[in-house]
């Protein structure tokens, strides 16, 4: 279990690790906004490469990262796209505005269009870039830096304490979880694949009660210890993890602001100055032929409701 954790509890030696908490949180927030707000492969691929370079520069332990990437790829992309193919083969038309069919089943119910493939590719790129940015942030930031950075962004410090405390207790809880599971298994409670689904669920629940009891039993002790040290007495608090900004910090903060300005510029350009008529940019579709698809047409629930009311 331990080698599956990617979060660090002590700061590492590389350039990005040495940045202050606020710089990392600020970069992560602007990066996330940029990824969420832009839905354009031309923007997302450079962002993804920046994040990938960040990850590589930190020389991480690649095994858990590759495992997670493959796991996510399989569950979200492979299964998700099979579902997409079955449920809405018209996703290409809905998002790109045109449709060039390259294969269709005999009944015409299922088909693949160039735009559908492009839409699948765009979603995959968006999710991959999102994955890279989370991974880069998780690798670079220790829980205390995360909390202090969020506090500096204006979040109340009690909420920040929740975050750093939650991180702090995860290894303890994970250890308790393994201990309880091992002792349960020793008593003959089957949690592996041998038991049926219902039985496994029931056994998982029997595991839960002692875990909840032991975890919440610690609450009073920790709270008393914090109260005794004067926690929550003043309106503000300082953070041990927050350092004075170095030259590297100022450089990264400047670049982050530049990224934010570029994102706003792109949004103004793509929505106001030169608006693309469809939801996502697609190299196959001719802008003059694009047809806007309304939500009533594309969302099956609304289609059903419409049919229901017409009867």
């Amino acid at each position, binding site marked *: *279990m331990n080698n599956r*954790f*990617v*979060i660090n509890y002590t700061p590492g030696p590389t350039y990005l690790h040495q940045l202050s908490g606020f710089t990392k949180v600020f970069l992560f927030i602007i990066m996330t906004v940029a990824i969420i707000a832009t839905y354009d492969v031309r923007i997302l691929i450079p962002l993804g490469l920046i994040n990938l370079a960040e990850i590589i520069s930190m020389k991480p332990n690649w095994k858990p*990262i590759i495992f*997670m990437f493959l*796991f*996510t790829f399989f*569950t*979200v992309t492979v*299964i*998700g796209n099979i*579902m*997409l193919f079955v*449920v*809405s083969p018209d996703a290409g038309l*809905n998002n790109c505005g045109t449709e060039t069919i390259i294969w269709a089943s005999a009944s015409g119910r299922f088909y693949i269009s160039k735009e559908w493939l492009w839409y699948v590719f765009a*979603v995959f790129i968006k*999710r991959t870039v*999102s*994955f890279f*940015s*989370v*991974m880069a*942030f*998780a690798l670079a930031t220790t829980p205390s830096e995360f909390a202090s950075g969020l506090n500096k962004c204006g979040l109340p410090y*009690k*909420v920040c*304490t*929740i*975050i750093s*405390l*939650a*991180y702090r*207790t*995860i290894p303890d*809880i*994970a250890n308790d*979880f393994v201990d309880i599971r091992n002792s349960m298994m020793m008593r003959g409670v089957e949690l592996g694949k041998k038991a049926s*689904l219902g039985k*496994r*669920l029931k056994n*998982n*629940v029997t595991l*839960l*009660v002692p875990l*909840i009891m032991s*975890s*919440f039993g*610690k609450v009073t002790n920790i*709270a008393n210890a*914090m*109260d005794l040290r004067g926690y*929550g007495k003043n309106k503000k608090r300082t953070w041990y993890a927050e350092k004075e900004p170095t030259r590297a910090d100022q450089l990264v903060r400047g670049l982050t602001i530049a990224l934010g300005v570029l994102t706003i510029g792109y949004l103004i350009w793509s929505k106001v100055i030169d608006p693309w008529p469809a*939801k996502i940019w697609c190299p196959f579709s001719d802008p003059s032929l694009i047809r806007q698809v309304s*939500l009533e047409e*594309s*969302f*099956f*629930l609304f289609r059903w409701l419409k049919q229901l009311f017409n009867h």
Partner: protein
Amino acid sequence: MAEKSLGQKLLGVWNTKTIVAVAIGAALFGVLMCYGGIPVTTNTNLTTAMIIPVVVGAFFGPLPALVAAGVGNVIADLIGGWGMWFDWSIGNGVAAFFVGLLPVYGAYVTEGVFNWKHAIIYAICVVVGNGLAFGVITPLFTTLFYGGDLNVTFIQAIAGSISNIAVELVVGIPLMFILAARSKSRTNLKEEE
């Protein structure tokens, strides 16, 4: 114990004890989300983590339950590393708020009060909360944030809310009776201010 106002019941009392409990709830949520789940479809798990907001809600009120589930989901995303899905974090937070309404309708589990009437109200809250959170809020944010396909998201959301409702009803109600019975045997002790 003095009767609290409705606002206080909704928001909870944010002293050090609540903060620690919410933090531990979030950590438990994260760990259970990562290691205590059985996958149903993509992005959704038949997970026992959904019980944590119920417990936090019963002890501290709905807003702490919301924060525990929301922060817990963000932590699960970070340690699980499958990318940040803020849409699901927000959805889980909203569902947790409804599930954690227990003290608002008089089910003071910490004082040993939980009967069948409360169980029925709890069941209604679970269904309404999950329906609203995963039927409306999560699909809305998914299309807004990630541009995912609405049809697929909706099917995932239905699968997710059904599995959540099942876990919260089948596990949650017996657990509440157990917790209430445990607390009842201790209520003759009074805490002095």
